């Protein structure tokens, strides 16, 4: 059922996340959205004023989501769509901590949803990497496997998806699996610096020695604005209960070797003085070699080196399990609704440029000034 013909009141968890930030203004612009409860545990969140109702809460704080009782009652009465984007996206988080947000948080949101009388849609954001250490083509309908996981994020989101699948018999749930969200397709702006951006910075600063995988390992990336548009679509006009969609590069996927070359090209183009450092591209190695290096650094490296390795060791091993994500259902729905997927080859350099010119976001205003 598509909740298209009604005026929507949306509860958005994770409004300050990378996708949440792009999603809020996009939803607020829609004529069929009358209000957005933006749930966040961060204090002082404002968001765009129109239609936005900031709500202090926490998905880990039980089925009431830590919301004050009066506000909770109003939300329960009004909410028609829940977009559950809140997550602990740290790859290095202990499994218990990741489960507390990603699994228990999802459980709490479903419990909350079950008390919303006008609810028509729950859209839960997940990750294509619930496929863990599986290799080869991954379909949108796939879930259960015993291949194992690279990190606690993948595992806890996988467990959350099992819960969501179970809940599909009772509630109108759709799961949206996102691949790695890089930045805005036009400006390259990155709303939130996450592991992949940190990894690029390590390369820039000569602190990334090696990456596991092969030059042909697929690296699936999507633009933040495309991710937000897709989530907005599948939460409203394109909602399909009981379905899982891959919001990913799909067939438009870069591979590791060319991606490193493209990165180097960007560093040289947007910071010509970087050339004189003559920093080598990280070597692409097998997983045991990478793990031996990471273990050695943990044993003897100083704090800077240890932190550098800690940033990448919880997610780059995923490249040693090459896989592609089939997005047939998503690709069948989005273009028909007028959404075109930006090509990674086009937006990746824009993001590299933004990262270099803003010092990985530390001098945002400088880049904004340059843009105007």
């Amino acid at each position, binding site marked *: 059922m598509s909740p298209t013909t009604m005026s929507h009141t949306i509860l958005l968890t994770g409004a300050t996340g990378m996708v949440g930030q792009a999603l809020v203004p996009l939803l607020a612009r829609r004529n069929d959205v009358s209000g957005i409860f933006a749930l966040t545990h961060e204090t002082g969140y404002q968001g765009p004023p129109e239609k936005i109702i900031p709500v202090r809460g926490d998905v880990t704080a039980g089925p009431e989501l830590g919301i004050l009782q009066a506000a909770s009652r109003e939300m329960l009465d009004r909410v028609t769509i829940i977009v559950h984007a809140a997550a602990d996206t740290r790859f290095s988080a202990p499994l218990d901590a990741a489960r507390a947000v990603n699994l228990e948080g999802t459980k709490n949101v479903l419990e909350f949803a079950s008390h919303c009388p006008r609810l028509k849609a729950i859209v839960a954001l997940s990750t294509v990497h619930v496929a863990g250490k599986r290799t080869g083509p991954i379909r949108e309908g796939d879930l259960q496997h015993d291949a194992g996981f690279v990190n606690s994020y993948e595992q806890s989101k996988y467990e959350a998806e099992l819960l969501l699948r179970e809940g599909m018999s009772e509630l109108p749930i759709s799961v949206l699996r996102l691949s790695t969200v890089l930045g805005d397709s036009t400006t390259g702006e990155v709303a939130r610096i996450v592991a992949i951006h940190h990894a690029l910075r390590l390369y820039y*600063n*000569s*602190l*990334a*020695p*090696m990456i596991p995988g092969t030059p042909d390992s697929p690296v699936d990336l999507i633009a933040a604005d495309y991710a937000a548009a897709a989530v907005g679509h599948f939460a409203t006009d394109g909602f399909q209960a009981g379905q899982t969609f891959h919001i990913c590069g799909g067939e438009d996927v870069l591979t590791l070797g060319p991606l490193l070359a493209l990165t180097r090209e960007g560093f040289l183009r947007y910071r010509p003085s970087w050339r*004189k*450092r*003559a*920093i*080598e*591209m*990280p*070597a692409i*190695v*097998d997983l*045991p*070699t990478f793990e*031996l*290096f990471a273990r*050695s650094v943990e*044993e*003897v*490296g*100083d704090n*800077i*080196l240890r932190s*550098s390795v800690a940033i990448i060791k919880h997610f780059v091993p995923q490249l040693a399990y090459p896989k592609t994500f089939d997005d047939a259902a998503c690709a069948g729905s989005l273009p028909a609704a007028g959404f075109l997927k930006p090509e990674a080859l086009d937006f990746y350099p824009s993001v590299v440029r933004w990262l270099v010119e803003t010092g990985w976001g530390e001098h945002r205003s400088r880049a904004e000034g340059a843009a105007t």
Partner: protein
Amino acid sequence: MNIGISAIEYVLGADTLSVEELEARGLLDSPAVRLREFGFCCARLSRDSSYALATAAAKKLLETTGVDPAGVEAIFYAGATPGSHAVETSNPLSTFNYPVARLQYELELTRAAAFGVSQVGCLGMMASVALARDFLLSSKSARRALCVSADVLPAGCKREMIYNVISDGACAVLVEKECGQNRILAYRQITKGYYWDSIALKNEITVAYFPTARNIVRDTLAEAQLDAANISCILPHNVSWRSWEILLGLIQMGRDQLFAENIGKMAHVIAADNWINLRDAADAGRLHPGDKLLLFTFGFGANWACMVLEH
């Protein structure tokens, strides 16, 4: 023209100290147990000067080979530290007193042009051998050159650098034209000046070491028209066994190709490792005529070098 290595001699510091003894004397940064895990058992410390060790190694080479000192057309003297390149007295101008000239005189190398090779860290000896090759190639009449490296760390100086244990020692290598042994097939050197401050950029150097090493090994093999499988033996610089395990993964070579016997008992003898290992691998019967040998080393600066020989 065939240019190769016809003879090698070396001397090490006379005092052998276990890593535990080094730790007890405060000469290590890491725990001894960790350095043992990394393959180091002991270090060789010298009470003699680097010049004394250099002289001993060079004399030994001339004696064992019977080479007429007057038949040596060049001498290259390598040392990683400034202390290895000065015969200092109380007069500040004594920094112009060069050990290579003194050695040329004392060994009666009367026809040898003298050169000091410095500021390339532990690459000094490999760079010297490469320069000796170029010298011989550029001179019609010259037939042989002597390369000597010597380093002795000051008393009380730490014996650990970037998780490697350092020994004192000297080595002498004879490079000759029309030499049937250890023919030089290819040599490459990379210098990355960005890493010149080896203390401030210690982490960056550790990181840059591996991909750059992989690249120079690949390119040197290509220059020699060989691939990794053609290499019978890797003659390493004696950095940690752990470091070599990682590098072997990068260069797609096996543990059985690495001559690692000296890492534990000698530790890292600055610039001399590859040549000491060449000598010892040959003495141990590990090498056979026609074997292709790969020598790789790294020196602060930062410098990477790789040479391929045919035994």
